[in-house]
């Protein structure tokens, strides 16, 4: 296809729940640390947005190792939300993030709605934090329920956090380990989510056939990487067409993204922005090569704005 549009003339910017992203490619939580780790390899400020590792009220050591193992076209992880905790995050990690000049989204996890709300409220006060992403895929130890798989619990959680996040965008990250992800999306939107990110990892397990033992010390883990991309695309498509489009709530798509073709798929399925996770381990420069590829693709297609692609799936 020929067009007079040059790659440089393509507009990759997106507006996302009040945040302006120069391009749609962000990092996925837990795969890029707190920012400085990838600075030797990529200009972190060239990202559309930076998403942090989960932050919890207290420091968490996480699970015993082995915590990760490669599986066919993907990997399992059971990190166990290891993180420095809220106070050290604020004093040690924010200074670098504040220099980036791009939207920074803090991923938040907790045991109960009050912990989610307390951590979110504290992060909402920090000027460089543009978004708070609730990682609801952790078991609710008190009630024995998981916020990510029970719509009533999820709505209650988001409703509790909602009034405490006044300035930053409130994003809810959906788990794929549910019967009907659209129902969970509806619950999150009813609770006040301004954007949905999806998908988190798929529950999985792998066994060492020599020792008869699980390969992860935690026995089970979360599957990520190219293996889960078709699942993610289908879920974004479902949530976009059944919930998000009509509600006007943007989707941040992720799951197995390796290159610009994958990103185009996510946009066509209905994602407004995307995140790269596992592939950062393979190639920390992936977000940059994706942007280059996207510009060329859109120029070749004669599409001047990336936003013209969102939800354009033809069925």
């Amino acid at each position, binding site marked *: 296809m020929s067009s007079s549009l040059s790659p440089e003339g393509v507009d990759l910017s997106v507006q996302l729940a009040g945040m302006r992203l120069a391009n749609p490619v962000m990092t996925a939580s837990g795969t890029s640390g707190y920012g400085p780790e990838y600075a*030797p390899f990529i200009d972190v400020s060239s990202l559309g947005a930076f998403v942090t590792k989960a932050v919890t009220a207290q420091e968490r050591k996480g699970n015993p190792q082995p915590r990760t193992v490669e599986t066919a076209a993907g990997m399992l992880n059971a990190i166990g939300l290891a993180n420095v905790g809220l106070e050290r995050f604020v004093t040690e990690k924010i200074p670098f993030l504040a220099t980036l000049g791009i939207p920074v989204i803090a991923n938040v996890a907790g045991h109960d709605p009050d912990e989610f709300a307390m951590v979110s409220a504290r992060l909402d006060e920090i000027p460089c934090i543009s978004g708070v992403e609730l990682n609801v895929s952790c078991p609710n130890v008190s009630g024995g329920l998981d916020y990510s798989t029970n719509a009533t619990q999820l709505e209650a959680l988001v409703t509790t956090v909602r009034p405490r996040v006044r300035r930053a965008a409130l994003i809810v990250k959906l788990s794929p380990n549910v019967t009907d992800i659209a129902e969970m999306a509806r619950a999150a939107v009813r609770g006040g989510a301004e954007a949905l990110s999806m998908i988190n990892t798929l529950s999985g397990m792998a066994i060492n056939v020599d020792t008869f033992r699980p390969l992860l010390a935690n026995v089970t883990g979360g599957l990520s990487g190219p293996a889960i991309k078709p699942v993610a695309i289908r879920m974004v498509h479902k949530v976009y067409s059944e919930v998000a489009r009509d509600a006007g709530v943007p989707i941040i798509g992720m799951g197995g993204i390796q290159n610009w073709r994958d990103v185009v798929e996510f946009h066509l399925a209905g994602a407004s922005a995307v995140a790269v996770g596992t592939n950062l381990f393979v190639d920390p420069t992936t977000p940059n090569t994706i942007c280059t590829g996207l510009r060329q693709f859109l120029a070749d297609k004669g599409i001047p704005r990336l936003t013209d692609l969102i939800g354009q799936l033809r069925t």
Partner: protein
Amino acid sequence: MTVTVGDSPSPPRMLVGCVIANQALCREHFRLTLRTEAIENALPGQFVHLGPPSADAGDDVSRKGTSFAPIPLLRRAFSIAGMRLVEGDRCDIDVIYRVVGTATTWMASLRPDDAASMLVPLGNAFPVSKGKKYAWLVGGGVGLPPLLWLSEALNRSSRSVTAIIGARNRDLLALTFDESVEIPVDGYSASRVSAEFAANDTPVILSSDDGSVGFRGHAAAALETYYSRAGVAAGDLVVYTCGPELLMRAVARFCLDRSIECHVCMERAMACGTGTCQSCVVAVHEAGSPDGWRYELCCTQGPVFEAGRIVWPDSGGGVQH
């Protein structure tokens, strides 16, 4: 005082390496030499995170190449076994690897002019203590590679260096034997039988679990025998060890019991290699913390740890390894 050899390492970069050679050293072990842009400073103990060359933007089939070997998704960590400046502005990096799974099978399929992607140099380095007259390198299995490069660096710093290298049997010793040298079996006589160590002026004591070469027993037992006969004061000695964790634990215990300075090069399952994923934790003692221990990352705070800092698995205290 503890200082490292040379300066501090250069920041890591992602580089494409061109295969110069990929040579079998013994059953299951190969040496892969990759040529790349010059790296200003890398130090023994540091590692390279190696994987297939990245796909270009959108070219999602290029990763698959034409090879029939399954291609790993994630990179794998390999200690730098040697590094040389060549052609003025290039450098050759050696890794020695044992074929154990997907990635190492892919590596064994590499031919000259094939490409591999590297994040390098990563991790910390073996500290070189000034004032120690003797340095002993105790290794087993795939723990050999970093010790080879360390012997080169230590040889330059002119101290007495001895290597104590063990394997399950002779076929698994990734060393080139000088056939004219008789291999002592007593566990305390070092010889120049290994061409690699001899090139660094480092005599070596070999051991094997089955007695098929050198001393019968594992390398920690050889260390004990050698120490009992060497007449070296504990305070004059530093021990560096790399190999299976059980071996390193035995070496660490031996040294700690005698107040011998000891540094261990740890191995952990890694995904990122750069400190982002929290995969590669090593439990270390931390006085003053509520539990008395915490995790450090093998990829950025290691792989080299002082032996006394590590919470070894049988030391109790409710540590989760």
